[in-house]
């Protein structure tokens, strides 16, 4: 019996510790450098001050993405003072820098909009849809991925998923619903 225990106990310890590590290990996202519509560059890893960074893949033409314009601005206004940074990325091949700039000006976006030429960041992040959100910490660990909320009709929203995730992050708690999905427009990639 003692001989069996000598084998079984280390094996059990190995499997339990592996399971705990697997549960706690977060998926990491790649670093990137992109320029905004004014030609100013932004590097994810250069940001050392924010408690979390919200990366929003958006589109100038997608009606679903556009239905969230005001909500994205409101999120920025509410959470920037709390130490959360918001960055928008336009990866759509059909939407050039001029259109991105006009769209941002028209909707008075308070956050920076970066142009992802050749959809390299969208590919690295496997972003498929607009709007699609990635929330990462300083270690570039993915804390939340998915939608802003559960309805493109603002008056029918029942689940404010991104706000819930940000509140949990600020409270130092794990994000309970860390992965969500919603219908939206596909990101038009280079052919």
């Amino acid at each position: 019996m003692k001989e069996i225990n000598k084998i079984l106990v280390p094996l059990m310890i190995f499997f339990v510790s592996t399971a705990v590590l697997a549960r706690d290990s977060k998926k990491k996202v790649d670093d990137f450098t992109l320029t905004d519509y004014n030609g100013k560059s932004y590097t994810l890893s250069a940001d050392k001050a924010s408690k979390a960074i919200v990366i929003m893949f958006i589109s100038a033409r997608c009606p679903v993405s556009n239905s969230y314009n005001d909500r994205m601005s409101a999120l920025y206004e509410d959470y920037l003072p709390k130490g959360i940074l918001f960055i928008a990325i336009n990866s759509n091949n059909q939407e050039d820098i001029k259109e991105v700039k006009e769209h941002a000006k028209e909707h008075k976006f308070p956050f920076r909009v970066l142009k992802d030429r050749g959809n390299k960041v969208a590919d690295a992040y496997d972003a498929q849809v607009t709007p699609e959100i990635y929330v990462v910490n300083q270690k570039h660990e993915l804390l939340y991925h998915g939608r802003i909320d559960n309805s493109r009709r603002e008056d029918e929203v029942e689940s404010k998923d991104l706000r819930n995730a940000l509140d949990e992050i600020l409270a130092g708690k794990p994000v309970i619903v860390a992965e969500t999905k919603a219908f939206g427009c596909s990101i038009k990639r280079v052919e």
Partner: protein
Amino acid sequence: MPANLRLPVLALFFIFFACSQETGEGDKTLADSSALVDKSVVPKVRVDLLDASGFKALKRKYQGKVLLINTWATWCLPCKEEFPDLVRLARKYENSDVAIIGVSVDYPDEVNSKIIPFLNSQQANFPNFVQDFKQPEDLINLFNEKWRGAVPATFIYDKKGIQRAFLLGKHTFEEFKSEIETIRSDS
């Protein structure tokens, strides 16, 4: 008229009358066909609600056929651009072992205001549904766990009901046909 001629004359008259009627009926059918082509005459399109049990029933109903389900929305431009190829596809595979189905991810309350007018404008010739799920991901995950909800997205099932293709974004008639034929030959 001699009595022995009355019967053949009556028969000829009857045949002539019957032919005239048949020609008239034929003209009516032609008129109907051209009316369907005329965009000013609106064909009747039906859009049913699709929930989780409806999705399972749909899969059951089409087992034994290669089933292509296209998800689309009236707010999605690439979906609208892709739609004529689906209509063409449905025409090609009419009465065959391949079925084409459309599922709109618009809201159910947009059936009359947006979905049916679009389907009519396309002369949609295959069954169409509108999603009726409380949470979008309930439908998204039913189709494919790897799908994030971007439309258009097309899913092709083999004759056993197993998903064999997940096509994200806009595709052409030839691309759809190629996928269908590969799955069809393997089934």
